[in-house]
């Protein structure tokens, strides 16, 4: 039961901490993240959402409502342009749920699903922003200078945080009294 487990506190706190860490790390490591011509977008929120779907151990976290909430906060606070992340975050959660039906739940298939998630997220983000004229970067440049470094960064996050987060979720999903 989601209501009775520690996840009730751990999941939302982790969600918003990762959201704020995205911004804080982009600020602190800006010389690394935004060194010309590359730019990496840190997507710890997506990592948290995807991994909590994989690690929820049968406890059903209301991922879609939480991802909409995180998306609204991201839109209002970090970018100031409403309407993008609030739709894309739940879409990515849905995509993860859809893809995980077809693959076993091993580390390799999880990292592959996360890879696809990031590609879809960044590409839809780029497409929407180029439609409303916030960016005019050509598609080829986007692939080489934005998507590739972003993937590299977020896969490093995935590998580095996979085991710590798994033990965190193991701890949080066990019953309090057990």
């Amino acid at each position, binding site marked *: 039961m989601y209501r009775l487990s520690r996840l009730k506190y751990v999941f939302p706190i982790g969600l918003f901490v990762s959201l704020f860490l995205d*911004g*804080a790390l982009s600020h*602190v490591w800006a010389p690394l993240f935004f060194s010309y011509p590359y730019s990496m977008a*840190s997507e710890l929120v997506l990592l948290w959402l995807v991994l909590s779907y994989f690690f929820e151990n049968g406890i059903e976290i209301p991922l879609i409502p939480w991802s909409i909430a995180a998306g609204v906060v991201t839109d*209002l606070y970090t970018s100031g342009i409403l*309407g993008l992340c609030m739709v894309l975050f739940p879409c990515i959660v849905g995509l993860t749920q859809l893809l995980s039906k077809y693959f076993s739940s091993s580390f390799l298939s999880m990292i592959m699903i996360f890879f696809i998630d990031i590609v879809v997220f960044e590409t839809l983000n780029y497409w929407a922003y180029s439609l409303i004229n*916030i960016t005019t*970067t050509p598609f080829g440049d986007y692939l080489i200078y*934005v998507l590739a470094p972003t993937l590299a960064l977020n896969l490093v996050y995935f590998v580095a945080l996979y085991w710590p987060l798994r033990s965190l979720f193991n701890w949080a999903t066990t019953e309090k009294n057990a």
Partner: protein
Amino acid sequence: MRKFFSNRRLVIIVVILVVCFGLMAGSVSLRNRRNTPPLVQQFGNDIVGFADSAVALPVNWLQTSFSSVNDLMSTYSENRELKQQVTELAQTKVRDQTLAHENKQLKQELKLKSSMTDYDTVSAAVLMRTPSAWQQQLVINKGQSSGIKKNMPVMSDGGLIGRVTEVNKTNSKVELLSDTGESSNRFAISINGSNGVVNGIITGYNASRNELIMGQVSSKAKIKKGTRVTTSGMGGITPKGLYVGKVSRIGKDDYGLAQKVYIKPAADFNDINIVTVAESASQE
């Protein structure tokens, strides 16, 4: 096989898409038109900003302590260089004080209250940077309650870095000069040429060479490399005399009719911790 795009699902997807793009376009145009975002948005942003400082401040603190250990390594050689500069600076400072005093007296004589060079400053810490490749934007921890208004110029490291684009009660967003958005870097600037002052605006940013571009400069103007560039104070909101950078090279525009001046900005856009927002005193 079940059809993926059944009628109902297709309608829902289209509706979501329309709402989505409506919201995005709406919020962009709203941001350009209004001085402050709607109250609900401000309120939300203030609460989130408060929660953000719980994460951002420890991270910032960690970074500062790491970089201070790094700085310790180069202290000796830096100290020697700085000592030399300090002796020069003392002289400049005294002269500056005398001139400021004289300036004040002269203004009193002319019964001028304040001119374009007078400005007050508000210091703020950077909370976060937008984690996106498409927006070069910072969130700082001061807002309306500290007197910050939309479009005020923001400085760091003694140089201009951008302008305030959104103001909430306790935090605000700053768009950097390196942003590719059309209005992000239109600042009125002036350069002292050898045959008079050259006025113009910043028209673009060259990311590959980290240079600001001042376009459409009359080809008669003679500008030397290394000349200091400051804001000209024209347009009202930005005070006169904020340091922008130095002229790095001068080129012709595409048709060869006018000059293009390339300016190396004084501040590093990727290394900003404390910013100063300048508030023109002649506004009030």
